[in-house]
C-alpha cells in the first residue's frame, strides 16, 4: 500500500496550510522524520517531516498552494513497491471537498467556513479569473471581499459584476485599453500570508476588546551594562555563554513576575486565570512578520539557561524550525525594539495574556544624580501594556518597581 504525506495539523487554530517549498522532489528518497517540505500555517512557516520512509513517487500539491488539513500532498512508495495505476491523482478520499474536522471554536476566530469562501479564508492568493481581475481592477473592487461562485470558490465575472451592483457590463466604457503598461508608482496588492493574516486578526481583536493601559519607567542601565561587560569579558576567555542586554531584561522580567504573580494571568470571562508557570513569550522579527517563541516554566531557569534558551529559540525562528509547541502557551510577552534604535514604545497585548513589556534602546543621556549634579547616564526605557480587567495600575506599578530593582541591581537577579 502506498503511503501518503498529508497536511498535518501544526497549530491549534490551523485549518489549512500553504505548501511553501518542497525540500524533496519526485523520485527522491525520504527517511522517517526527514524534512520534506516547508509549510506555512496561520502562525509560522515550518518544516514538515515524513512519517514514513521510501521514495516520493508523486507530488500532488504544488508550491504556493493552500490546502485543508489532511490533504494528501504526496505519495510515498516503499522500496520495491509498485505505483498503483491511479497514482497520478490523489485518492478521492482526500478531504479537499469535505474540509477536515472543524477546529474547536477558539478565542482567535478561525477562518470562515471553507465551503462559502475558501478564497478569502485561504490566507493565500485570491482565486479569481483573469476577466474577473480585470473588471475588479477597473471598478476598484476589492476581490478579497468577494465570494466566488466558480469551482473551488474561484471568483468569476458574474461575482464581480454582482459585487458592483451589476454595472460592470453596461457602464460607460472608457477608451478601449491597449497594452496595459504598469506605470511606476502604481499601487500593488500584496496578498496576505497566513502569518500576516493572523497578526492582523489577533492584534485587532486585542486592541478592540482588551482595555489597554500603559505605564512607563526609565531605569539606570549602567550597573547592568557594567556587569554584562565583566561577564562577557570572562566568557570571551573561557568560551562561555555571552549575555545580551535582552537576556538581562528577560531574567529580570521573570524574577519580577515571581514577586508580582498577578501580572502573569488571563481574563477568562467570569474568572481570572492565575498561571502557575511563567511562560515568557519573546517577539522575534522574521521575514514578513514576527513570531513569539516561548520560554517555558521560566521561573525555574537560571540566568544562563534563559540566555541559552533564548538563543536557541531565536535561531529556530530565523531558520523557520520553530515547532508549534514552541510558539504556544505564553503567559506574558516581551517585545524589544532597542536594537532597532527605538527609545520607547507601547506594545499591543497578545491575547489571552494580560501583559506585554516594550523595551527600548539603552541611551546615553544627561541625568541628575543624588547630589543634584548633571552627569552622563545610561538609561533604558521600559513600557508596560496591561489588560486593565486583570492588572490594575497599582499592580502594574508594583511589577515595574520590581523590574527596576532587578535591572538596576542585577546581582539580585542572579540569586
Amino acid at each position, binding site marked *: 500500500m502506498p503511503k501518503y504525506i498529508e497536511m498535518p495539523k501544526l497549530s491549534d487554530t490551523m485549518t489549512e496550510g500553504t505548501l511553501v517549498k518542497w525540500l524533496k522532489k519526485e523520485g527522491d528518497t525520504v527517511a522517517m522524520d526527514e524534512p520534506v517540505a516547508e509549510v506555512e500555517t496561520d502562525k509560522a512557516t515550518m518544516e514538515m517531516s515524513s512519517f514514513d520512509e521510501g521514495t516520493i513517487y508523486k507530488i500532488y500539491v504544488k508550491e504556493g498552494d493552500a490546502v485543508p488539513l489532511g490533504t494528501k500532498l504526496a505519495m510515498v512508495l516503499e522500496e520495491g513497491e509498485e505505483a498503483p495505476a491511479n497514482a497520478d491523482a490523489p485518492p478521492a478520499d482526500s478531504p479537499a471537498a469535505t474540509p477536515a474536522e472543524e477546529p474547536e471554536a477558539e478565542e482567535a476566530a478561525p477562518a470562515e467556513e471553507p465551503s462559502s469562501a475558501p478564497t478569502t479564508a485561504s490566507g493565500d492568493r485570491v482565486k479569481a*479569473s*483573469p*476577466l*474577473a481581475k*480585470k473588471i475588479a481592477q477597473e471598478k476598484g473592487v476589492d476581490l478579497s471581499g468577494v465570494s466566488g461562485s466558480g469551482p473551488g470558490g474561484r471568483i*468569476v*465575472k458574474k461575482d464581480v459584476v454582482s459585487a458592483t451592483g451589476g454595472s460592470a457590463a453596461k457602464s460607460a*466604457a472608457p477608451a*478601449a*485599453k491597449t497594452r496595459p503598461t504598469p506605470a511606476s508608482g502604481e499601487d500593488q496588492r500584496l496578498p496576505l500570508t497566513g502569518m500576516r493574516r493572523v497578526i492582523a486578526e489577533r492584534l485587532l481583536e486585542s486592541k478592540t476588546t482588551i482595555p489597554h493601559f500603559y505605564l512607563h519607567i526609565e531605569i539606570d542601565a549602567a550597573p547592568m551594562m557594567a556587569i554584562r561587560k565583566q561577564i562577557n569579558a570572562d566568557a570571551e576567555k573561557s568560551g562561555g555563554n555571552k549575555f545580551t542586554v535582552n537576556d538581562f531584561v528577560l531574567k529580570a522580567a521573570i524574577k519580577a513576575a515571581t514577586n508580582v504573580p498577578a501580572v502573569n494571568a488571563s481574563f477568562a470571562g467570569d474568572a481570572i486565570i492565575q498561571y502557575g508557570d511563567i511562560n515568557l513569550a519573546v517577539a522575534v522579527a522574521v521575514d514578513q512578520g514576527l513570531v513569539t517563541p516561548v520560554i517555558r516554566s521560566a521561573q525555574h531557569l537560571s540566568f544562563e539557561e534563559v540566555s541559552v534558551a533564548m538563543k536557541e529559540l531565536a535561531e529556530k525562528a530565523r531558520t523557520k524550525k520553530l515547532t508549534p509547541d514552541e510558539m504556544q502557551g505564553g503567559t506574558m510577552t516581551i517585545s524589544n525594539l532597542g536594537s532597532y534604535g527605538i527609545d520607547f514604545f507601547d506594545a499591543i497585548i497578545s491575547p489571552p495574556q494580560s501583559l506585554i513589556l516594550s523595551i527600548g534602546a539603552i541611551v546615553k543621556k544627561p541625568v541628575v544624580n543624588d547630589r543634584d549634579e548633571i552627569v552622563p547616564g545610561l538609561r533604558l526605557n521600559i513600557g508596560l501594556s496591561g489588560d486593565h480587567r486583570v492588572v490594575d495600575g497599582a499592580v502594574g506599578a508594583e511589577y515595574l518597581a520590581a523590574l527596576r530593582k532587578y535591572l538596576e541591581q542585577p546581582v539580585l537577579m542572579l540569586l
Partner: protein
Amino acid sequence: MSQYDLIVIGGGPAGYVGAIRAAQLGKKVACIENDRAGGTCLNWGCIPTKALLQNALMYQNMQHKAEEFGFTIEGLSYDWKKVIGRSRNVSNKLAGGIEFLFKKNKVDYIRGTGSLAGEGKVSVEDADGKTSTYEAKNILLATGCKARDLPFLHFDGEKVLGAREAMLLEEQPKEMLIIGAGAIGVEFAYFYNAFGTKVTIVEMMDNLLPVEDTEISKALEKSFKKQGINFHLSTKTTAASVTKDGVELTIESVKGGDAQTIKGDVCLVAVGVGAILPGGCEDLKLSGRGFVETNDKYETNLPGVKAAGDLIGPPWLAHVASFEAIHAVESMFDPNHKSKKVGLFPGCTYCHPEVASIGLTERACEEQGLAVKIGKFPFQASGRALAAGDSEGFVKLIFGEKYGELLGAHIIGGEATELIAEMGLAITLEATWEELENTIHAHPTLSEAIHEATSDAFGHAIHI
C-alpha cells in the same frame, strides 16, 4: 422485485455516463438499453461517421495529394463494403467497451425496452416479450432522439434515408440528395462526394452550417464548391416523389422565384431530430417542440424522474448529454450540488476542412450589441499547415473590446476539432487575450494560429 437507487433508461452518452457516475457514488444502479450500449453516438452517430470520414479523407489525399508528395499510385480503387465494414467494426469495439465499464462499475445492464410504470417503478420488456418490473428511488430518462423526416417525405430505409441508414448503404449511390446542411448533412455530403457520388444539398437557411459564424460558413461553401459539391441555399423543399429509380425533390428559393426539380438515387433527410419517449410518459411535460422539459436540476414534472441528453432538447451533442447526465445524477444524491444547465459547448463538424467553434459568433455579438475586437490568422501562413500540405482555412477569435475576454472562437481547417479544446478552456476560465498571448504555443504547430489570431485582434500579429 429489485430495489435500485437509480434506474437509467437509455444507454447512450447520457445514460451510460449517468449510470456509471451514480455507481461511482456508491449507489445501486441499473441501466436499461434496448439496442446496444453507447447509444446513437457510438453506434449510429459520432463514432461510425468519423470512421467513414477518415476513409474519405484518406481517399481524397491519395487521389489528389499523392503526386504533390511524390507518390505515384496506379490503379487506386476501393471496396465499398470494406469501407462500411470498417466503420461498423470501430463501433462494435467501443460498444463492447461500455459493457465492460458497466461490469467494472457494478452497474446492472438490463437489455430490453424500459417504460415508466408508476412512481418509482420501471418495467422492462425483453426481446422475448417478457416483462419485469424494477423499483427505483430515482429514475433518469436518457432515451435520446431519432431523426425526423418530412411530412411529404417519409423514411423508407432504401431511398429516403436518415443518418443511420446513410452509413449502412450496401451500394454506393451515384447521386445523392441531402436536405439540411447542419453537421450531419454536411458530413455525409463530404463523405459521399469524396467517393465520387454526385451530391446536392438543399438548405433553407442562407449558409452551410448555419449555426456557425457566417465567415466560416462562407469559407466552407467555397471549399465544398471546389470539391464539386452542389448546394442550394435559402431554398426550401416543397414536394417530393419517390419512385423505384430514385427520389425527386421540388425546391424553390425562400426569397421567391420559380420552383425546380432535382433528382437523386437516394435522399438523406437531415433536418433535425425528435425525442424518443419511453412508455408511461403520458403525464410528462414536454416543450412545444416535443422535448422533455427540465429545470436546472434536470428534474421533470414527474416526481423522482429526471431527464438528460438529447431528449431534453438542443444541442444534440454527445459531450453535452454526458455533462447533463453527470449533473443530473450528482444533484440526485447530493442536495448541495450546484447543477448547471449547459451554456458553453464546442461544436464540431468533421468534413474536410473541419469546422469547430465555441462561444459567440460575430453575428451573435452584433445582436447583443457587444463591442468586440476580432483577430484572424490563415493557415496559409502557418509553417506546420504548409508542411502538412493542408493550409486551407483560418482561425477567427472574438474578444470583448473593453476587457479583452475571449467571447468566441471559430476555426476552419485541418485539425480544427482538436484545436478548439484550448479555446473552451480559455472561455471557461474567463481568460483574456493576455493569457492567450502570454502562453507560449509550440512551433511549429497549428495552434500557433490561435496565438497569432489573438495578437492580430490587438494589432500586433507577427506573421501576417
